[in-house]
């Protein structure tokens, strides 16, 4: 059996003295495509930040059994300052991990990789433009290029479908399915209904994590996993996870 890329064991984390997530047991394998769902404030973003090394581990263990994998990260759109004077080219190239980040210029191979990424995303003509001139969908594409430019083994996306239109959302999901052939994906969403057709399994995060090894989700299953739902009419699985979780 393949080694997991990431393994969390009884992990707890939070902010200052407040524990936001406790006793998390979770593994991510190379072919995984896991939808991380849960209510707002339940700890979804905190969980992925723990894996990314942006959150301190209060207790428990965080392992990378096959060595720390190359990770690509797409943060929530609200975290991106669109008024910052940075060009699309600079934004995407900031995803390149180099031993010497201080070297002022990109190497020829880095430039070629950058150009091919921008070309694949249809952003070549926007390369020199500031990110403030991009539409919501184009900005998400640029951020996804930044996350992918280092050819990660694990791609982590935090609510990539906000501030984008339906057409881009579908395009994004097709792209992610294709990418999943070569990398593991963690996709955070507050709405399982829209992502269930593309994910392979589900992790429900609300103060702790409950893993569900299938994308087939029903009200009954969510109740078993202590994830009460509100039935709303959209998507193949019509529901939304509620905030009022209690994982006693």
């Amino acid at each position, binding site marked *: 059996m393949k080694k997991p890329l990431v393994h969390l064991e009884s992990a707890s984390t939070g902010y*200052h003295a407040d524990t936001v997530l406790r006793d998390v047991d979770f593994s991510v394998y190379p072919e995984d495509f896991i939808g991380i769902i849960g209510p707002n404030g339940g700890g979804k973003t905190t969980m992925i*930040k723990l894996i*990314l*090394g*942006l959150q301190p581990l209060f207790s428990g263990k965080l392992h990378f059994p096959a060595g720390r994998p190359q*990770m690509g*990260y797409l*943060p929530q759109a609200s*975290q*991106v*300052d669109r*008024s*910052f*004077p*940075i*060009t699309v080219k*600079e*934004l995407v*190239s*900031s*995803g*390149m*991990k180099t031993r010497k*980040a*201080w*070297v*002022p210029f990109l190497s020829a191979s880095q430039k070629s990789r950058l150009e091919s990424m921008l070309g694949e995303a249809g952003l070549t003509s926007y390369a*020199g433009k*500031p990110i*403030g*001139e991009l539409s919501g969908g184009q900005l998400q594409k640029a951020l996804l290029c*930044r996350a992918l430019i*280092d050819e990660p083994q694990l791609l982590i996306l935090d609510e990539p479908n906000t501030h984008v239109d339906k057409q881009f959302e579908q395009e994004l999901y097709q792209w992610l399915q294709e990418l999943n052939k070569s990398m593991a994906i963690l996709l955070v969403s507050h709405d399982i209904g829209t992502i269930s057709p593309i994910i392979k399994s589900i992790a429900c995060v609300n103060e702790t994590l409950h893993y569900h090894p299938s994308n087939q989700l029903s009200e009954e299953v969510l109740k078993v996993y202590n994830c009460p739902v509100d039935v709303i009419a959209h998507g193949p699985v019509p529901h939304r996870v509620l905030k009022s979780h209690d994982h006693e």
Partner: protein
Amino acid sequence: MTMSEFFSIFQYQFFQHALAAAVLTSVIAAMVGTYIVSRKIVFIGGGITHASFGGIGLAYYMGLNPFAGAAVFGILTALGIEWISDKGKVREDSAIAILWSLGMALGIIFVFMTPGYTPNLMSFLFGNILTVSLTDIRVLLAYAILLIILFGIFYRPILYTAFDPEFARTKGIPVARYRYMMSVVMALAIVLSIRTVGIILVLSMFTIPQITAMLFTRNFSLVMPLAALWGVIGSIAGILMAYVLDIPTSAAIIFFLTMQFLILKGILLIRNHILRK
């Protein structure tokens, strides 16, 4: 004033020094100010500026160089604010307000306790570019060259850590190291510029040319030289206006920088309005 009287001022060494200081301060402020405005940390700049007055007061009291005192207070304040922001245990804006007013209070107390008259105090508050010495110019030139080299070598990590520090951390960039380095860079740039326009007005040199430049470009590497250009034009025009009208130089510089921004903004608004029709 006749034209020959007007041009005669250029023969004087103090005026040549003033022009050189204006150009060099504009270049320094353009680079550091672009970082400040882009990161939206103008309030931190204000905190550093005003806290440095405490250092000036202490240096006066101890008979030391006031700029050395200002530099020490400025750097400690900048590092303190970055540390507070990093740890997040105290609200950053509250911490800045405390350091801002504490610095001013300490400055006033030390100046009050200093025996005798403190003749240059007003020049620290409002600047006096006409008294800039050759040594001052050499220091400004050395710092401007240092900044050009620093931004040249570290452009990418400075940009990346300013734009998205969390993402930069995921890429293994030592974000805290760069942030602390830039805090020191900011503090020294502000303290050196106090000579030109004074504590009260120095922040405008670090913001107005940058927002003027950002009317034309949203590219960090282009904002810096363009802000330097607007800074040089505005400050030289301010110095000349101060000479002609016999008004305080620093205030004239800030007035010109602001007018420059408003006029250009107005022209762009009119142009956009016409293009839309």
